[in-house]
C-alpha cells in the first residue's frame, strides 16, 4: 500500500510539474507573439490620430501602458504580478483583469456545459443508433447527418438561424442585453439556447463517431459474447456491458471538446453577444491590451490543464481497470 501511495504521489508531482511547464510555455509564447505583431496599444486606441501625438505625449503614453520597458522586464513584471495574484489592469475599462475574468468566466462555463449537454444528447444516441446495425440505412443516415453538421461553419449556421428566427418569429433574446443566470434565469436560458445549440451540433459529430467506433469495438470483445451466451437481456447487455465500456474514449473526446469550449467559443460569443472569456481575449487583442490577453490566455490554459486532470479522474470512475493501475 505504501508503495502504491509513493507511486501515486510521484505521478501527482510529475503531473503538476508538467502543468507548470505548460503554463510558463504558453505565457512566453503569448507574450512574444503579442509583441511581434505590428501595432501597439497607442496605435490601437488612437488609430491614425497617433501620428498627431507629440514625442512627449507618445513617451508618456508608452509609460502609461507599460510598454516603455525592455521585454524581459515587462515579462517578469507581469509574471511577478500573476504569482502574487495580480493579473494586471485593463486600461480601457479601468478594471482589473481578475475582475473582468470573474464576470466573463461563469458565462463561458455555462455555455460550454450546455453545449456539451447538447452534443452528448445528440451524439451518444446517434452513435448507438448507427452502431446498432452497421452498414444499414440508419448507419448511413446518421453518418451523413454528422458529416453535414461538421461541414457547415458554425458562424454561418448561427447567423442564419438567428436571422430566420428574428425575421419570422420576431424572437431574438440576444438583442435584449445579456443577463446572467443569477440575474434573470429565464432570459439567460433563452439567450443561451441558440449558441449552445449551434456549438452542440458541431460537437455532436465527433462524439457520434467516437461512440459508434467504440461500441463496435467493444461488441466484438469476448466478454460480450460470454454475457450474451449467459443469457443477459439485450437491453442490459447494451447499456451495462457495451456502452459502459465504450464510454472511455467518449469521455476523453468530451473532455477535449470541453477544454476547447472553455477557451472561449469565440465565434458564438461574438455573434450572440455573450460576454464570455473568448470575447474578452478578442477585445484585448483588438485593443492590444497586453496584460488582458496574457492573463486571460493563462487562465484559459490553466483551465485546459485542469479539465484534462479531471478527465483522468473520470476515467477512474468509469473504468475500474484504470483505478487499479
Amino acid at each position, binding site marked *: 500500500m505504501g508503495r502504491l501511495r509513493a507511486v501515486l504521489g510521484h505521478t501527482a508531482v510529475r503531473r503538476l510539474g508538467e502543468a507548470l511547464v505548460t503554463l510558463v510555455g504558453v505565457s512566453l509564447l503569448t507574450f512574444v507573439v503579442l509583441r511581434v505583431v505590428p*501595432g501597439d496599444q497607442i496605435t490601437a486606441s488612437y488609430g491614425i490620430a497617433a501620428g498627431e501625438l507629440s514625442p512627449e505625449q507618445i513617451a508618456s503614453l508608452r509609460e502609461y501602458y507599460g510598454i516603455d520597458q525592455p521585454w524581459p522586464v515587462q515579462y517578469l513584471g507581469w509574471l511577478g504580478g500573476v504569482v502574487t495574484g495580480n493579473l494586471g489592469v485593463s486600461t480601457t475599462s479601468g478594471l482589473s483583469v481578475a475582475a473582468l475574468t470573474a464576470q466573463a468566466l461563469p458565462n463561458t462555463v455555462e455555455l460550454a456545459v450546455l453545449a456539451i449537454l447538447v452534443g452528448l444528447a445528440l451524439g451518444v444516441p446517434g452513435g448507438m443508433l448507427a452502431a446498432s446495425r452497421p452498414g444499414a440505412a440508419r448507419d448511413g443516415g446518421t453518418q451523413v447527418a454528422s458529416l453535414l453538421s461538421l461541414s457547415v461553419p458554425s458562424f454561418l449556421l448561427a447567423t442564419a438561424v438567428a436571422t430566420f428566427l428574428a425575421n419570422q418569429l420576431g424572437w431574438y433574446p440576444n438583442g435584449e442585453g445579456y443577463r446572467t443566470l443569477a440575474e434573470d434565469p429565464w432570459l439567460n436560458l433563452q439567450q443561451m439556447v441558440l449558441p449552445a445549440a449551434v456549438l452542440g451540433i458541431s460537437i455532436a459529430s465527433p462524439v457520434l463517431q467516437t461512440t459508434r467506433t467504440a461500441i463496435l469495438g467493444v461488441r466484438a470483445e469476448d466478454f460480450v459474447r460470454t454475457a450474451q451466451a449467459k443469457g443477459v437481456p439485450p437491453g442490459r447487455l447494451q447499456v451495462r456491458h457495451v456502452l459502459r465500456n465504450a464510454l472511455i474514449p467518449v469521455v476523453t473526446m468530451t473532455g477535449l471538446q470541453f477544454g476547447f469550449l472553455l477557451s472561449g467559443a469565440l465565434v458564438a460569443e461574438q455573434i450572440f453577444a455573450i460576454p464570455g472569456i473568448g470575447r474578452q481575449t478578442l477585445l484585448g487583442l483588438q485593443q492590444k491590451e497586453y496584460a488582458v490577453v496574457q492573463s486571460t490566455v493563462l487562465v484559459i490554459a490553466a483551465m485546459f490543464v485542469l479539465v484534462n486532470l479531471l478527465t483522468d479522474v473520470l476515467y477512474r470512475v468509469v473504468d475500474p481497470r484504470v483505478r487499479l493501475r
Partner: protein
Amino acid sequence: MTLRRSTAVLAAAAALALTACGGGGEEPAASPGEGTIVVGITADPTQMLPWTVTSKQAIQVLSQVYSTLLDTGESSEPVAGLADLPEVSDDGLTYTFTLSEGVTFTDGSTLDSEDVKYTFDTIMDPDSKASSASYFGSVKSVEAPDPRTVVVTLEHPDASFPSGLTGVNTGIVPSDADPATLEKTPLGSGPYAWEKRTPNQSITLARNDSYFKGTPGAAHLEFRVIPDEQSMVSALRTGSVNLTVFDNPVTAKTAGTGSVTSTPVDSLSYHVLQLRAASPVLSDVNSRLAIQCAVSRQDVVDSAALGAGEVTGPVTSPEYRSDPAAQPCPEQDLDRAREYLAKAGTPDGFTLKLMTSQGLYSTAVDEAQAIQAQLGKVGIDVQLESLDSGDYVDRWLAGDFEAAIALNGGSSDPNTMYARYFTSDGSFNTVAGYSSKSLDTLFAQGIATTDTDERAEVYSEISAELVDNAVWVWLFTPKLFVVHTSSMSGLEARTDGSYSELWKASLG
C-alpha cells in the same frame, strides 16, 4: 480694442436663424417621454476622458454626456453651443466667448468660465495625452476674466480654430473633478447624465432635466454592445435595439425594411487612393496623372460601395467643397492615361504596390480590387498588399508605402482637413508624400482671414494644385446609414451619423 463679428460668424448666424433648429435654442423636445432608447454599438467605447476620445463609439456616448463650447449646424458649420459664436478682434488674434446663463453640470454645480479654462489648459498639457491638442496648436493663452466670459488669445490668426471647439474631444469638464474619477464616471452638462456601465455590455445614461437646450426626449439612453452587425440587424427587427448607424451598405440594406427605417446621410470623410509622390515609382507627375486618368471613380463607388457614395474632390467641407469635375481627367480616359504613361517614359505601364486593410472598414479591399482592374487596362500592374489593421496603421503613419487605399476623416474646416497632410511641417506630411512652397503659402493665407469668400478662393486654389499634380486620387464621400425602429420619433439624422440631435428623439 474694437471687436467685430466676422463674416463667417454672421453667415452661420443667418443660417441658424433660417433653420431655427441649431444649437442654443430653448425649444423643448416634441414630447419628453418615458422609456429607454436603446442605441446599438458594435464595440465597447475605449476612452472615457473627453479629450482622449478617438473611437466612434466613445464619441457617440460622450456626446450625450458632455456639451461643447460650440456646436455644429446642418452643414457642419460652427454654431452657438455652451457659448455664443465668438467675437473676433480685428487682428484675428482674440476670440471672446460669452457662456449661456445658468448652465449646470449634472451634479448641480454651475458651469462657468473657469471650467472652460481648466478644460482647454488640460488639453494643451502634453501630460494629458489629448487627441484634441492639435486644435489648440495656435493658442497662446486662455483667460477667464469673469464667470461668463472666456478669452482665447492666439499666436497667429487661425480661422480654423472655432471648428475645433465643436468636437466632443473639447467637451467641457468641471474644473474641480479629478481626471481619474472622470474616466470612470464622466460628468458633463450634456442632455443625459452618466448612470452606470457594465464593461463590454452596456452604458446607461439618465435624462438631464436641467439640460440648457431643452428637455431630452427619453428617460434613459442605453448604449448596448452587440459586436456582430448581422446580430444587430436581428436586434433592430425585434425592437430590442432602437437605433444604430451602419457604414456597410449591404447591412443597411438588409436592415431597412418593414418597421425599421434606414436613412442615408452624407459624410465629410472621404475615400481616397493615396499616392506618395516621394516614392521613386510615383515621383513623375505624369505617372500619377496616368493613374488619375485610368481610374473611374463612379465605377469604384458602384462596385465597392454599391453606389452608396458621391464622387468627390479634395475638400468635403460643405462651405468650401471642391468641384469633383475640376481635375485633368474628371472621367476615366484611357487614351490620355496612355499619353501620360508615354510622357513618363513608361509607355507599357509600371508596377505599383497598393496597400489596403481588411480590418479597418468594410469597403477597403473591394476598392483596391476595383482600382487594380482599372489600372490594369493601361498596363499598370497593381500588386495588392492586404494588411491587418495594426500593420496598415503602422506603415501608413511611417509613410512606408507607394500607394494606399484610405478612408480619411473630414472636417467642416478645410484647414483642419489638409494642413496636417500638405504643409511641409504638417504632422502627416510624410504620409502624404508631397509638399510645395506654393501650398505652404496658400495654407498660411487660408487661416489668415476669417472671410468665408476669401477663404473659399484660397482653398479652391489648393484643391487645384492637388488634383492638377495628381497628388492623390480622391474617390468618393461615403453614405452612412442611420437605422432606427418605427417606435422612435423626433430623430434628426445628421451628417456623419452624428448623435448631436439625439436628445430631441423620444419613443412612441
